[in-house]
């Protein structure tokens, strides 16, 4: 039992990092997801399904492939990464930021879909009412659509958080497996599994992931309950 609680320094680093990455991922993903979800939910345009297909790529592609694409785009020699490096001296790959970006990209379709779904289910009658009361599109969105779609937004946030906790493939390629910088729980877990006989360390990390999951769910459950109470 005591062995199960005996976290090594590296493991503790991984746990803290995982949490930080997941929070940043969920927080950063929210604003763009909201905008895109609203756009997809309320506007009709030619090529909508092309946009959708594009946005859903990170879901359909194996995360390892996503990681490679990120590397090809944002790596130091990447299509965009080159300029970021040349112009701003910004090296994204193999860093904490890369871990957050990898998580974000992979969670993006999930967050968008949850938010979009709940925006679509908001009755436009309320938005019309807001317009007759003088609110412009943005005000209507912020004061009416958004709060009514809140369950979906919470859902999107929790999905991004949870997906980030489990993210492995894209992270190990784009962010590397560097303790204290990009080694999240799944990556640390990977390391332990590589060593025969280190199962208990792997199990320990697994348990932490499980606990994180439960805490996240309790929290979102609590928020949703408050919401229903409120409505």
């Amino acid at each position: 039992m005591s062995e199960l609680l005996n976290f090594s320094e590296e493991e503790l680093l991984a746990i803290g990092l995982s949490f930080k990455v997941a929070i940043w991922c969920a927080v950063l993903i929210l604003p763009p997801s909201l905008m895109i979800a609203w756009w997809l939910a309320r506007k009709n345009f030619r090529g909508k399904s092309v946009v959708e297909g594009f946005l859903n790529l990170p879901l359909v592609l194996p995360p390892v492939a996503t990681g490679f694409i990120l590397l090809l785009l944002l790596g130091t020699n990447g299509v965009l990464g080159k300029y970021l490096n040349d112009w701003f001296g910004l090296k994204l790959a193999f860093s904490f930021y890369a871990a957050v970006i990898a998580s974000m990209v992979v969670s993006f379709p999930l967050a968008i879909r949850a938010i979009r779904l709940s925006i679509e289910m908001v009755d436009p009658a309320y938005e019309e009412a807001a317009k007759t009361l003088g609110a412009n599109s943005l005000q209507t969105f912020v004061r009416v659509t958004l709060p009514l779609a809140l369950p979906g937004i919470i859902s999107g946030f929790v999905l991004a958080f949870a997906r980030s906790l489990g993210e492995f493939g894209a992270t190990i390629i784009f962010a590397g497996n560097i303790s204290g910088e990009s080694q999240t729980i799944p990556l640390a877990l990977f390391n332990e599994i590589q060593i025969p006989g280190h199962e208990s360390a792997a199990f320990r990390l697994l348990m932490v992931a499980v606990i994180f999951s439960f805490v996240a769910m309790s929290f979102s459950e609590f928020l949703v309950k408050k919401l229903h109470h409120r409505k």
Partner: protein
Amino acid sequence: SNRQEKKNQISIFAASSVTNVARELAHDFERSSGIKVKLNIASSGILARQIESGALFDYYISANQNWMKYVDSLSLVNKHSIRNLASNQLVAIVPFTDQRAISENEFLMQFPSLFSGRLSIGDPKHVPAGKYAMQAIDYYEWDEELGNRILPAKNVRDALLMVELGEAEMGIVYQTDAKKSVKVNIVYTFPYHACDSIHYMGAASKSKSESLDQFLLYLQSIEAKQIWNKNGFKP
């Protein structure tokens, strides 16, 4: 201070099959030199791709000679620093529940019928251990009889795992891994001539630094060799 830190630090990209060795080397080196070691552990291929895309590293340990050749062909490593770090041997393993005593003769003559189900090896297409295992299978001409009974794993550790779990009744993996596992029994150790020699390759990056030089020196040291040895590798 950031620069100071950078100076006093090296980054080692190590193949996942030598995770434990890499960790112990790093610790030992850190303790003796005071230089911080940043480890990046992934499969040899991923590491090579990362290096190709501009990842900053000081030393690369590959379990796969092809990937070492690849990074060398792109002149991403210092050609002169490439060297064999250690070698390994193949063994055949069964789950520890299987307590049969199998004689060498029995093994070599009846290998395919010693077990039912699939034979767990690394994916011969890209996992070196799998490739060596296939060479051994060809060498003893078991391939026809085995047919499609191969269970290819994405790395050698997974191949071992399948035997540990009893999902495969037989597997061919590295001796180092098999010895560490308490859940498998080694029933046969393949002789060196059954397959190509199994080498772990190391190479330094082209960017020179004092810390890296110290590390290269350390790799030659007895302490380093002991670590390889302790983990079952032949330095």
